[in-house]
């Protein structure tokens, strides 16, 4: 699908992206110097207006909550295949994608990890940034050391593609889920499976630990979100909406009281884990086919997600309004990542646009 010229907002000085393997980090003109591409829409479908002023606020008042004002800063190219997952390191210095390592400040490639025989679906950092785990279609999870850049462990056990992976907060354990419909909990130090949870009846699309590692959340294509007790491996709860749309991603909130779940009916929901009720719904983006990541934006007052209409969306956490939409990618934006400390977002897109873009909010207003 070619890019519709009407929609094309000039965001960088260069022409179309053609090189696949060249490593390039383009620095995009900083804020103020170019036409702003960030539009703020207040009601869902109308985002294609080209506004000349940044972020028009409907009722400006002194106490208005912080509105994100992200601008593109860098564009990282180098991947030859679709990027399926990107994550910032815990100290924020690096960005990992499947499977390359980028410097988050300059955009240079630090390393490319070789070793997986097949494609990679997910990467995860250990809590101290020492290890990187990658989940692959070759049915293994590989652990890479950031000191030696070598594989230090190969976790074998899944009987089909491994789709998602995440470390526990102490990083002594790792959870992975895959097309064999199970979630496996691994002992990182010994490289062995601790538990196999009969999690779902369809491929598992995401696993996550809560903030203290006592719970594991998993979601799958059967539309269910399940919460497991890490110690005993027992299922504690199942969250499901009426229609069971395919659930593509989940994440616990920092206090573990809520789960942010993306589903393929173009909706993101926030579930209260204690009452099992959905307390917030975020719509306006498109998500019908791919497993698109969602995250809490830096500052934790917004939700950020990619979309199949090639844009990155921001919603206000409480009011559920769309507060910013970022244009620029030329294909489905499949992954987004929030920087742990700075107001920086990374987004990655699929085949027709193999770039990772970094967006920063340099404005000083707001929380």
């Amino acid at each position, binding site marked *: 699908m070619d890019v519709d010229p009407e929609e094309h907002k000039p965001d960088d000085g260069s022409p179309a992206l053609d090189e696949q393997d060249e490593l390039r980090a383009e620095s995009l003109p900083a804020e103020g110097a170019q036409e702003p591409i960030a539009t703020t829409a207040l009601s869902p479908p109308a985002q294609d207006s080209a506004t000349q002023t940044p972020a028009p606020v409907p009722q400006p008042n002194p106490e208005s909550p912080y509105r994100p004002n992200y601008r593109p800063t860098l564009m990282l190219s180098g991947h030859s295949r679709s990027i399926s997952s990107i994550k910032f390191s815990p100290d924020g210095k690096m960005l990992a994608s499947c499977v390359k390592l980028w410097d988050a400040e300059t955009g240079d490639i630090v390393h490319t990890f070789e070793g997986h025989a097949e494609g990679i679906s997910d990467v995860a950092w*250990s*809590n*101290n940034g*020492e*290890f990187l785990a990658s989940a692959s279609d070759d049915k293994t999870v590989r*652990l890479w050391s950031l000191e030696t850049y070598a594989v230090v*462990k190969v976790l074998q056990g899944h009987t089909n593609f491994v789709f998602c992976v995440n470390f*526990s907060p*102490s*990083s*002594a*354990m790792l959870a992975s889920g895959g097309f064999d419909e199970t979630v496996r909990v691994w*002992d*990182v*130090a*010994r*490289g062995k499976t*601790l538990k196999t949870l009969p999690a779902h009846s369809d491929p598992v699309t995401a696993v996550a630990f*809560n*903030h*203290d*590692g*006592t*719970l594991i959340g998993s979601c799958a294509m059967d539309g*269910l979100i*399940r*919460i497991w*007790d*890490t*110690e*005993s491996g*027992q*299922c*504690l*709860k*199942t*969250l*499901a909406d*009426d*229609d*069971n749309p395919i659930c593509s991603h989940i994440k616990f*909130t*920092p*206090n*573990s*009281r*809520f789960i942010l779940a993306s589903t393929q009916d173009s909706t993101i929901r*926030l579930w209260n*884990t*204690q*009452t*099992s009720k959905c*307390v*917030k*719904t975020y719509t306006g983006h498109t998500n019908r086919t791919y497993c698109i990541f969602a995250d*809490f934006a830096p500052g*934790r007052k917004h939700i950020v997600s990619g979309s199949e209409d090639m844009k990155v969306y921001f919603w206000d*956490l*409480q009011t*559920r309004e769309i507060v910013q939409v970022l244009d620029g990618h030329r294909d489905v934006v499949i992954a987004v990542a929030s920087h742990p400390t700075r107001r920086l977002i990374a987004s990655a897109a699929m085949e027709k646009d193999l770039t990772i873009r970094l967006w920063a909010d340099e404005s000083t207003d707001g929380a």
Partner: protein
Amino acid sequence: MGVSRLRTLRHRPLLVALAEVYLDVIAMNRTVANIFTSPYPTAIQTSLESYATIARFDPSGKLIAAGRQDGLGVIWDLATRGQVRWLEGHVKGITSIDWSQNSRYVLTSSKDWNVIIWDLASDTDPPHRQATIRFDVPVVSASFHPRNCKIVLVLLSSGEAYIVDLRKEYRGRYELCEVQDESDDEGQMNRSRAVFTAARFEPSGKHVFLGTSLGYILVFNARTKTMVARHKISGAGIMRGLEFVASGRRMVTNSSDRVLRQFNLPIYPSPTADNEYIEQELEPTHRFNDPISKVGWHAMSYSPDGEWLAGGAADDASHKIYIWDTAREGLLASTLDGGRELLAYVHWHPHKPSIASVTNLGNILIWHCPTEERWGAFAGGFEEVDENVEYEEREDEFDIEDEADMARRKMLEEEEDVDIEDGAVDSAISAVDQSRQPSENDEDVLWALEEPDDDAQGWKMKVILEDEQD
């Protein structure tokens, strides 16, 4: 699908609300008394093969430090049930183990005359030794000051007790000596032969309690090292061990007469210029015996709230732990049977209904409250109830609601703010904080906090990968 049909059951019975409490409790891992799990463990969850003679939980309850007969110390990670650190250094058996407040430092004492403090935050295995304190006789026990792990209490096999201060300003070894009462000749003769046989810090760190071979408990102020009280425990014989509840208000003693005695402790006055001390016989509130074979006790441990006492019996036929209800007249609540391997040590988990007991073959048994898997958890919106509930339809149960109205109502419901960040305090850490009793202005507390240790919250232990073993 069946799930949507079940969702029409909008009126959720009372028992459903209780099921949510269950999830809340399990999710937050608190030991708040709840109607679903018992406050003390009932079954063995797992056994760790360790060749250990003693084993203690760390303050977070996620690790166990085990001391072995061969002098090796081992740190177990309970989440993975793996041995994550090896404390190599002692050449003879380990006699006691202690953890610092935030689990960063581990102290081991040994028959090889040494006390070693290990820093678990170091990147290596075995961990870096923060300090080695050497004596000239075997060390019976050693423990950290509860608030500053640079202050250590040591009991030697010669019967002497020392406070070893590793801080620059106060550096030194301070012997704790019983005050001799010159007027009482007979008493003086007796006491001069008495040696110390048990030594513990009381949980606030203000005082040190020492048990003597003649059935006395002496209380010393940790800062001034002066004796502030002497308690006779009549009938006890040699004092073998002391344990406190977290608040420091109650204490249990183990002695050679094979009786565990529980006492309510008085408030001790600050030390005076002329070193006055209280002389008072203490009467126990309860006595606990082995009901069957009258054997003694190897160890005892209070539950985190002090409501329950676990006693590890020196039974020579089987591994027995007795659980008494201290709130109800010391009633025997339960007897845990751990099989044929005899018991050597017992320690209660810092905030869960769980116990670690060590067998004479060195295995560490972890006891827990087993939870039945709730099959209803696998279906969303479906709650199990124990009894049939008569369902009463609401007046508007079958009204067909306008779609737009429903959507609007949902939008309204969603207006409520959510908080995604607060309440995330790790339950283990908050439990530790709650046991801080005396006010921060207390002179003894201030003294202890001078030149504080660097055992800060939030440090993380590095994951060290095991080498491939084929």
